């Protein structure tokens, strides 16, 4: 026959207490440890006055230029030490550079068969006279796609942090002082009227000539962005918003990136399976050559131009 314990005896055993702790009926701390509530830290007036007095004493005694000899010595030494530090840094950096192998040395680690393949059959396979453009937009097009993505993400982040909606911006600009700024400068406006089309055309020329001469999407896009910034600076934000506002910006950026992705995807699948792609390589040296390079250049150029202008507008006034 099993012996069942009485309730009072059972309550004194360890297993009862263990099972009670597991089930959570009784909190082991409440009632045994006393905790006081925390009150806010009160700073007494005496300590405040003492700190202010100490601060004033520091300013009076230590920063007293006339009587503090250590300070004047430090100021003189600081200039000499700054110049010496710059010279030493330059010297050590140049010393390190002199240890690098000469460019083009046959024993360099980057002179392997990849570079040779690019140089030897670059013109034939890509159709671009400028090997660098041909390489980054056909052989390494995926890396360039990643870079374009980075530009997109950068503007999105800046928009998250800095962008304010149009209503608050208009209220702010009315309350701001409008007098005395360099605003509506007639000389600048006349100059911008003649120069902005020139700059935009030059930017388009650099983009379209990516495969024939140094340039390509990135620098051409930067020039386009510079032209837009000049226009916005000379005439103000309202005339610029007539043709480049947030809607145009959104459409241009997203469609440029998506088109790059689609063209790249098509080309990767065709090229990897050695199928003939529909964009011909053309005669090297002409504008319509280089196969895939021209459409990708246009996409990248649009992307970079929108990025440049968006950074300027977002940092200056908080909205596009």
């Amino acid at each position, binding site marked *: 026959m099993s012996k069942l314990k009485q309730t009072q005896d059972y309550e004194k055993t360890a297993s009862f207490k263990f099972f009670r702790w597991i089930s959570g009926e009784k909190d082991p701390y409440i009632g045994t440890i006393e905790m006081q509530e925390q009150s806010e830290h009160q700073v007494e007036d005496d300590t405040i006055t003492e700190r202010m007095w100490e601060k004033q004493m520091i300013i009076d005694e230590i920063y007293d230029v006339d009587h503090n000899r250590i300070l004047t010595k430090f100021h003189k030494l600081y200039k000499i030490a700054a110049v010496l530090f710059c010279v030493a840094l330059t010297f050590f950096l140049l010393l390190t550079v002199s240890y690098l192998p000469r460019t083009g040395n046959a024993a360099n680690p980057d002179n392997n068969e990849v570079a040779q393949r690019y140089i030897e059959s670059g013109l034939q396979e890509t159709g671009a006279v400028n090997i660098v453009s041909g390489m980054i937009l056909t052989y390494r097009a995926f890396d360039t796609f990643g870079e374009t993505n980075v530009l997109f993400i950068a503007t999105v982040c800046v928009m998250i942090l800095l962008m304010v909606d149009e209503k608050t911006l208009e209220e702010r600009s009315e309350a701001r002082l409008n007098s005395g*700024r360099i605003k509506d400068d007639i000389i600048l406006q006349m100059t911008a009227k003649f120069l902005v089309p020139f700059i935009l055309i030059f930017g388009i020329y*650099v983009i379209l000539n990516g495969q024939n001469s*140094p340039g390509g999407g990135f620098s051409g896009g930067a020039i386009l962005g510079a032209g837009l910034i000049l226009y916005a600076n000379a005439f103000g934000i309202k005339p610029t918003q007539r043709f480049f506002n947030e809607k145009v910006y959104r459409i241009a950026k997203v469609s440029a990136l998506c088109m790059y992705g689609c063209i790249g995807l098509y080309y990767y699948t065709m090229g990897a399976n050695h199928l003939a792609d529909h964009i011909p390589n053309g005669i090297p040296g002409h504008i319509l050559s280089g196969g895939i390079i021209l459409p990708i250049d246009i996409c990248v150029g649009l992307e970079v131009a929108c990025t440049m202008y968006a950074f300027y507008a977002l940092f200056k006034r908080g909205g596009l």
Partner: protein
Amino acid sequence: MTKEALELIYSNIYYVVLIVLALMLFVCLVRAIRGPRIADRIVAVNMMGTMVMVGIAVLSLLLKEGFLVDICLIYAMISFLAVIVITKIYVREYIKEHQKEVEEDEHH
């Protein structure tokens, strides 16, 4: 005069021009550091940009690559744009601070 002698003369002229331009750049830089006002520094940097443009054009003829003059044009555009933006921003900030000081003086 043979062709090689002519090439040698041209190369030497270009090297001399480049060295002289580099020295003048350094002198401009000293002016940019020393100038007491902001406008001094902007003027000095503009001058440095102009000398660099001549240097780029000389380099394009020295290396016989015709497309480097594109870079010259881009540099001119970007330096012009930089001057415009800097002046506008500085004048605006200065006037904002000035207005604040005038208002504070009026309050006191």
